[in-house]
């Protein structure tokens, strides 16, 4: 019968907590940068010329139809042959931003398309500038509409970020790998790590629900 040995795992629990913090930092940074990419691409896809639309569509389809693991291998191992050498941590961040950008673009585009034309026309009639219309009339209600899908995509991004440990970037899964090779208590280490990821996703869901309550207090038009 196998004897569980959790003592070495909890002895180095601070290492794991640091790893969890790195995962939080990495995914938050990736989400913020990815959101910027998404908004720019969504704008390009709805309002840009056809060449830009084609490029953005190709980006979205390629990213959404290939595994994240292959994307990160391509960025970390493949790009140096084009002269772009990245540290594991920057490669991880870049891969996550590129990945989140593709999913985020589709989500935000759906939000933008949910805005009725009359709203924009009303903005023009009121003499708002193009940027003001985009910022206040399109983006604000669009983000509100797609907020639930954006947050679940973020949780998915955080879970996916565990894959960056394979190129030895720093995160929770990598902290687990280090501890595993130091203690050989593989199952014990990974069950604790898995529970920490579960706690992170439950925690983030709660935070997002609280933000939703605070940020979207103003009443809906309908």
């Amino acid at each position, binding site marked *: 019968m*196998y004897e569980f040995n959790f003592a070495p795992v909890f002895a180095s629990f601070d290492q794991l907590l640091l790893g969890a913090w790195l995962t939080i930092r990495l995914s938050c940074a990736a989400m913020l940068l990815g959101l910027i990419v998404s908004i720019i691409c969504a704008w390009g896809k709805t309002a840009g010329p056809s060449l830009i639309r084609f490029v953005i569509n190709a980006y979205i389809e390629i990213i959404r139809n*290939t*595994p994240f693991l292959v994307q990160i291998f391509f960025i970390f*191992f493949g*790009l140096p042959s084009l002269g772009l050498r990245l540290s594991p941590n920057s490669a991880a961040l870049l891969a996550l931003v590129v990945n989140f950008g593709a999913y985020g673009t589709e989500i935000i585009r759906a939000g933008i398309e949910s805005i009725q034309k009359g709203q924009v026309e009303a903005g023009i009639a009121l003499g708002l500038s193009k940027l003001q219309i985009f910022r206040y009339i399109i983006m604000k209600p669009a983000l509100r509409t797609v907020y639930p899908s954006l947050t679940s995509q973020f949780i998915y991004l955080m879970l996916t970020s565990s894959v960056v440990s394979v190129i030895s970037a720093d995160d929770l899964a990598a902290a687990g790998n280090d501890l595993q090779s130091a203690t050989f208590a593989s199952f014990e280490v990974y069950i604790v790590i*898995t529970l920490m990821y579960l706690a992170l996703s439950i925690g983030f869901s709660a935070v997002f629900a609280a933000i939703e309550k605070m940020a979207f207090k103003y009443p809906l038009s309908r």
Partner: protein
Amino acid sequence: MIRPFGWNEFLIIVMAAQWTIALSAIAFAGGGIGGLLIALARVSEVRPLRLAALGFIRVFQGTPLLMQLFLVFFGMNIFGLAINPWIAATMALTLHASAFLGEIWRGCIEAVPSGQREAATALGLKYYNRMRYIVLPQAARIAVAPTVGFLVQLVKGTSLAAIIGFTELTRQGQIINNATFSPFMVFGTVAAIYFILCWPLSLLARRMELKFSRATQR
């Protein structure tokens, strides 16, 4: 010794796609059975069953697939089984697919108007016949598009089996890359093969979704 990336290396990578397809197919079949059970448990009238299914879904949707693979891989040792990447990868992906399909199909079952179920009950149909002939056939129509969409996610997910040493497309790419050291070509090829596998499924899912929403609008 470094050898160039030539036609042979390309073919070796292409051939490895069969293991990706096999792994996806097995996980999809297993996940289909598991997912149906989870979905039925999730809409069941027995509260503990509903809660157990909910917990299963929450755990598998709230943890990384990579960790699920590791846990099954190292967990086999605890149950006294020899560590085998094939079995570990299939088991982990089957459980993963069961949770996701279970949640997708729960939504589809709940989307069937409750009057259908009530009418079936009024006609004297018991649980099995009610589900088999009334509810599930209607839910299945709604389920097709999101299920194909999930299949894309599953095919991409099989790439993580490479990390526990299962030689499918991604792992074969790594092996060839170690021998040829032309990562740009190797991972470009690997990505292209995944794209060829997944893109038609994505397009199909989108088309069916469009067709379905048009059909239900009328």
